[in-house]
């Protein structure tokens, strides 16, 4: 994926947030970076709104409603790619 060193840190931070916010009642789930949150059933649609709010406030990204898709927010991989693409340099 050609991820930068900064991106690796970003991945760890996003994963830590997702685990803390959404996986604390799912200790049996071993979340892989490509796993889809919806398919695993660990984040509901309102949970995605919380995830989007976190990304907006943490990285200063304005997210349009049409961007709130599984492609952008549906997995750790998707999140990292979206934030890398959109955050202010």
């Amino acid at each position, binding site marked *: 994926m050609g991820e930068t060193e900064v991106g690796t840190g970003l991945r760890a931070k996003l994963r830590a947030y997702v685990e803390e916010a959404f996986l604390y009642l799912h200790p049996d789930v071993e979340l892989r970076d490509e796993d889809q949150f*919806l398919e695993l*059933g660990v984040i*509901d*649609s*309102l949970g*995605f*709104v*919380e995830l989007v*709010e976190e990304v907006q406030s943490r990285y200063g990204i304005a997210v349009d*409603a*049409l*961007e*709130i*898709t*599984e492609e952008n*927010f549906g997995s750790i991989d998707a999140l990292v790619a979206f934030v890398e693409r959109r955050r202010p340099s």
Partner: protein
Amino acid sequence: MVRNMGDRGSGDPLALDADATIARLADCTRAAVRELGRRGAVVAVSGGVDSGVVAALAVRALGPQRVLLLRLPERDIGDAASDLGLELAQALGAPTEEEPITAALEALGCYRRRDAAIRSVFPDYEPSWRHKLVRSAPTGALITFSLVVERPDGSTERRALPSAAYRALIAATNMKQRVRKLIEYTWADQLGYAVLGTPNLLEYDQGFFVKGGDGLADVKPIARLYKTQVYTLAQALGLPDEIARRAPTTETFSLPQTQEEFYFGHPYERMDLLVWARDADVPAGELAPRVGLTPDDVEAAYWEIGRRRVATRYLHAAAVTLD
């Protein structure tokens, strides 16, 4: 199995024999009430078609004197709904009681909680402003919600609703459905009656109800009927015109609000076909021209229907008992 739209011959997969359906549902309602050991039925009537059909079925099943129609007006909805309920009761010859719920909701803090949630998005909001909740378009993106307020000068403004405000607003407004249900069960206890619920198939299947509110009932006579089928029965049952033709609303917010803009994202006629076709494995490309959507839009709708079923399992779940 992949089905095609012509499988049912007439071209309308939701066509039904209204008289036979009415007779069957009335028989089953009577049997269910008897099985529960109750001697009549309470139906809360909103002035809408669903509760109108359930009330009429109850009268067919049990006779008008074994049915109590409750009208539960609330200030955000206005009195017109209660007036329609009265018209229905008169048409059916059934007893009716009116119990306004505004004072109870005021005392419980429903409006205070709701107004605080709205002010977190519109700090200058005044309780006199009408408002409603609106979902995002059904594009295949995840569903998000916006709040619309109408200012005193008549202008409206729409802002995205953060998750905490959304939860607080829904929690507050769900009190309306739960207080209505409290009154229904109070009357049911007093009379030895069962409570009939009024969800149709779309609401039941897609989880569009409040747990412990309109989702709570002893019998749900029309939970397997699509909305278009409910309208068909309303005509066959001879309900007053204004009820038989009334558009579905949410009975919750002060600005006029359809179920489409709050929840389903599609008008009920289309939503009926989408739910039916998804379950019948009709390919999106085949359904698309029938419902006036692109195949991609149909796929997005199929996806949402499945997602909603998963997301609302909690609403259907009975209490978990432990060994």
